[in-house]
């Protein structure tokens, strides 16, 4: 057995089989057990080392050859696999309570497997093709049943498809640079193509218009999943680029470009989030802001920046799951999700509305919540290099905080005499309560999740130097 078969092909096969199963609970149960098995396997099994269980000896090889190219998942990738599949369990486990399991679980599993393949393929530039295939699979997941495809969905398809040619073509130029590193013209062309490719993939301003549109027109839970997995894997892909190419890593303009892009994303999304009237759009802008923060961590040289980059991952998934789940509960009651139409819902949907506000506050970096420790570390790191950058970042954060206050005002402005009640189902209440507890605990004890990402910086040895 090879590692790519276990972590790529088996999930793809299972995803295909799960599409045929009509029962939501069965789909979720099977997918959760399977992804848990994959997570534990990534955590416990060694790759390229013979292992013995009783009389049975086996070895998981790291490579799998396909059409002259290889998929490689070595020992170093185990932490990454555990993180990706472990996070997927959270999404799949909550999906039935959000009534999204029928579509999300099989397609989500297939998308996850394809994106893992994107991180495993060598030469790694071919990842662009696999990411594009995952994008194509996300279209049926994000489409609203019985409705025409919305602008957001079409723009997602166009922008993400545009990324592929740029990345692939830059690969050819990069090969030329390796052969002739002194050719500055070639370096410049490659840098422009890579920049454009990643701008499309990471939805960098102005190529991010599809995110707020999509959060408005599609199922919030499915959008939440897509907005978690695509930026996360793309950021890993980007780190791979930086780690692999010394000329890119050591380019004198790289830091200023990353800082500008990061600030642009944080400030624009923060300010726009502050003035949105649609709850879904606020979540969309928060995701853009988080991508901006991840980019900013790369400007903090050495292991500090890389550690903060990975530190952001766990709080982000937690906040996004809670936010998307709460939105999907509220959407069933108030399909438009406009602020004016959710007035006073805090009295009737206390868990879901609390989820919205807490997740929003956590991503805004509110103390005592999960987002605070990594955001505080970013502010600290940025302050040591530039006060101006910190001020801009603060403006963005304040925008997101302002949106949380507006939501809080809307949900708490109930008519006089209205009674407190909870219309969420038992499962929804339990899952949201677990989420709130996790948000609080991660805010107080961020070191508890350290083992989840502690080995990840080792994947990018050159960046950590």
């Amino acid at each position, binding site marked *: 057995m090879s590692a790519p078969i276990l972590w790529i092909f088996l999930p793809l096969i299972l995803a295909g089989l799960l599409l045929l199963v009509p029962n939501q609970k069965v789909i979720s149960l099977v997918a959760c057990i399977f992804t848990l098995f994959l997570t534990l396997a990534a955590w416990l099994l060694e790759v390229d080392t013979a292992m013995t269980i009783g009389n049975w000896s086996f070895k998981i090889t790291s490579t799998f050859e396909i059409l002259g190219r290889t998929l490689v998942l070595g020992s170093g990738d185990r932490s990454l696999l555990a993180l990706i599949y472990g996070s997927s369990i959270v999404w799949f486990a909550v999906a039935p309570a959000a009534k999204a399991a029928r579509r999300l679980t099989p397609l989500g599993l297939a998308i996850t497997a394809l994106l893992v393949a994107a991180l495993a393929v060598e030469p790694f530039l071919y990842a662009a093709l696999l990411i594009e295939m995952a994008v194509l699979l996300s279209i049926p997941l994000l489409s609203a049943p019985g409705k025409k495809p919305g602008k957001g969905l079409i723009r997602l398809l166009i922008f993400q498809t545009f990324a592929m040619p740029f990345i*692939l073509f830059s690969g050819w130029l990069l090969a030329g640079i390796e052969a002739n590193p002194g050719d500055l013209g070639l370096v410049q062309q490659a840098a422009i193509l890579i920049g454009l490719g990643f701008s499309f993939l990471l939805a960098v301003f102005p190529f991010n218009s599809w995110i707020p549109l999509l959060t408005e027109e599609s199922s919030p839970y499915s959008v939440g999943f897509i907005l978690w997995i695509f930026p996360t894997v793309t950021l890993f892909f980007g780190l791979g680029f930086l780690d692999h190419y010394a000329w890119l890593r050591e380019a004198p303009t790289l830091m200023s470009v990353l800082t500008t892009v990061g600030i642009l994303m944080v400030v624009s999304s923060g300010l726009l989030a502050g003035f949105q009237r649609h709850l879904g759009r606020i979540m969309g802008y928060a995701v853009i802001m988080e991508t901006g923060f991840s980019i900013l961590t790369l400007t903090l040289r050495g292991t500090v920046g890389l550690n903060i980059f990975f530190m952001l991952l766990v709080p982000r998934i937690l906040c996004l799951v809670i936010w998307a789940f709460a939105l999907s509960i509220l959407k069933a009651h108030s399909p438009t999700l406009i602020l004016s139409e959710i007035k006073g819902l805090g009295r009737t949907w206390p868990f879901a509305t609390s989820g919205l506000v807490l997740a929003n506050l956590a991503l805004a970096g509110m103390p005592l919540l999960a987002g605070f420790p990594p955001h505080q570390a970013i502010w600290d790191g940025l302050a040591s290099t530039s006060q101006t950058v910190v001020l801009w970042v603060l403006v963005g954060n304040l925008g997101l905080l302002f949106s949380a206050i507006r939501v809080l005002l809307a949900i708490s402005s109930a008519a006089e005499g209205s009674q407190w009640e909870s219309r969420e189902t038992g499962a929804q209440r339990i899952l949201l309560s677990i989420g709130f507890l996790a948000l609080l605990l991660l805010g107080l004890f961020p070191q508890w999740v350290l083992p989840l990402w502690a080995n990840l910086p080792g994947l990018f040895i050159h960046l950590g130097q």
Partner: protein
Amino acid sequence: MITVINWIALLITVATSIGLLLQRDWRWGIGLLAIQYLSIFWLVQTLWPVSMAAVKLATGWMVCAVLGIAQLNKDHEQETEVSWPQGRLFRLFTAGIIMATTFTLSLRTSGWLELSLPIAWSCLLLIGMGLLQLGISAQPFRVILGLLTTMAGFEIIYAAVETSTLVAALLSTVNLGLGLTGAFFLNMSQEDKP
């Protein structure tokens, strides 16, 4: 002789890409796309072995078949563009600008990538026309035609620098995926009706 056929393939590309921009009947759209894939096949086979280049043709025609079947199952009411000029004269004018621009660019590209002029011009023309299609239309069918056209242009240019079988297979899968997405979009619109 081959050079002459390359120029003929370029002319076919010009005609089909402009036709795709101007057409208002889906049958013409799919027919023109199928012919366009024929010229793409010819241009790619100058860079790749015929057996590999044939994959482009087979995939392209499969995409046309998928889109055609999806269109057959759709109710065809009059669909109009809502946001951009609908006139053929406007489209013809912008197509002319694209042709002129891509010709200028292809003079440099052909030298840079060591491609013959008709091949370089065809690639850039397809990319340009696809982008134009994407820019002036929000109809899902036209968007898919635009994406397929843009991708086709890129695939020819990429064939000049990459001959990997895996890339050919993955690009074919992406094209098929785009075709299936187009069919899905058309069916989504269909579900809207009682």
